[in-house]
């Protein structure tokens, strides 16, 4: 129940953890594009070495990384066979009209390698950035949109509060499921339709209590003088430090070098 598949946040104190979330988001975007923009063996070697180094710096264990990569296993599996059998070229093995070509093997390999780099880059961000920091970074990046009356601060607040209540809700579901099981509801009995129906006695009380919670939360916010985000003091300002600047330069440099290398 606790397995959040795609790169859960791993608390730590590495340089990657301390970087400004905006820099990290920008860098991640760039790193996700690079595997597709680089077209040379040397470039690819530099790029994957760099990513591997980042993984080590972030202090992410290889088993965590492996677990993240496993989430895309079936996509990779499918992709592999699609490329293997549909790429025309010089046949290696042929069974009837279906042929595995040299080019097919090569491009299947390359696509899977790209997919893995993509996943590693994306999960590096979520491994080293807490959801709350991500929300702050997003808020800071979208802040210019306030000009066109997009309520960015409110949205960020909604996001942070929602994230805060995920574990609370999870505990509640757990508690209610236990209570219903104690009264004899068998959650795993029957076919898919029956099992879906079994969830009704869990979700109804969960929703009821979530609404009650929301109501009380709104009252508690009201009682503490909340009048919308516009009246609030701006507290959590993000500052770009020297290390953020350096990190941005390093990633930009890497992009230029790997694309230039043939």
């Amino acid at each position, binding site marked *: 129940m606790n397995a959040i598949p795609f790169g859960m946040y791993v608390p730590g104190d590495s340089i990657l953890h301390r970087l400004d979330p905006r820099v990290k988001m920008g860098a991640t975007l760039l790193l996700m594009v690079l595997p597709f923009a680089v077209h040379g063996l040397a470039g690819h070697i530099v790029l994957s070495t760099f990513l591997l180094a980042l993984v080590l710096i972030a202090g992410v264990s290889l088993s965590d990384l492996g677990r993240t990569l496993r989430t895309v296993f079936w996509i990779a599996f499918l992709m592999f066979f699609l490329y293997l059998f549909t790429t025309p070229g010089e046949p290696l093995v042929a069974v009837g009209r279906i042929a595995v070509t040299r080019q097919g093997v090569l491009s299947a390999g390359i696509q899977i390698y790209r997919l893995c780099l993509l996943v590693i880059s994306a999960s590096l961000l979520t491994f080293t950035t807490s959801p709350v920091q991500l929300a702050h970074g997003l808020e800071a990046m979208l802040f210019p949109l306030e000009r066109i009356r997009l309520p960015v601060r409110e949205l960020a607040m909604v996001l942070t509060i929602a*994230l*805060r209540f995920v574990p*609370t809700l999870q505990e509640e579901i757990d508690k209610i499921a236990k209570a219903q099981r104690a009264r004899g509801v068998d959650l795993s009995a029957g076919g898919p339709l029956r099992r879906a129906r079994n969830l009704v006695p869990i979700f109804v009380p969960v929703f009821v209590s979530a609404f009650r919670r929301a109501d009380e*939360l709104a009252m*508690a916010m009201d009682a*503490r003088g909340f009048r919308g985000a516009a009246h609030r003091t701006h*507290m959590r300002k993000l500052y770009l430090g020297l290390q953020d600047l350096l990190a941005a330069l390093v990633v930009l440099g890497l992009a230029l070098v790997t694309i230039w290398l043939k």
Partner: protein
Amino acid sequence: MDEKIIQIEGLSFTYPDGHRALNNISLTVNRGESVAFIGPNGAGKSTLLLHLNGILRSPNGAVKVLGHPVAENYLRLIRSKVGLVFQDPEDQLFSPTVFDDVAFGPINMGCPEAEIRQRVNQALQQVQMGGYEKRSPHHLSVGEKKRIAIATVLSMNPEVLVLDEPTSNLDPRGRWELIELLRGLPLTKLIATHDLEMVRNLCERTILLDRGRIVADGPTPAILTDKLLLAEHGLAPPIVGQA
């Protein structure tokens, strides 16, 4: 010391579903008093508390805080002067860190940053939770959550502290610690509770509510020793021989 801090004159309140929760309530609370509201479930205690902070409002200005009617144009002032702590701290603590939660009120008041930090510090000291700034409220114990919930209103520098069932769900030690803590806060206190032992130890005045009416209002020792009165309103074992 006899400054009237809360005045209620003929307050009635009916919920939209027609349930009449408060019926012609009148009372005055002076600065520095510690008042308990007791009564069976559904007596109207919580509804009354919600009126003190303007969450619920009576249209005819029956409730006055510091001489100001609880109405739209005084709400900001009143909400900073009357700190309302709800029963379930889980429903009020919604920020990723303790600091953010305690800072929420002052941030809403538009205080400058340095003052916010100073207020948060002070509020956490007052509930003996200094050093918890960076913790996630979700992972604290119930007693700790309660104290943080109290700190979240103390940071607004209130003059009145209003608490709904502060000792519910606490273990005996947590409960006594909380009672001691509340006793140490030099504020006017209004507490709705079933915990008569706390009332005895904390409040010099007790108001007994039942079915939306004030049944008794007087010094705590007098009311809590009136077995007949308590039994009649379901707060003590029924007295044998009484109908």
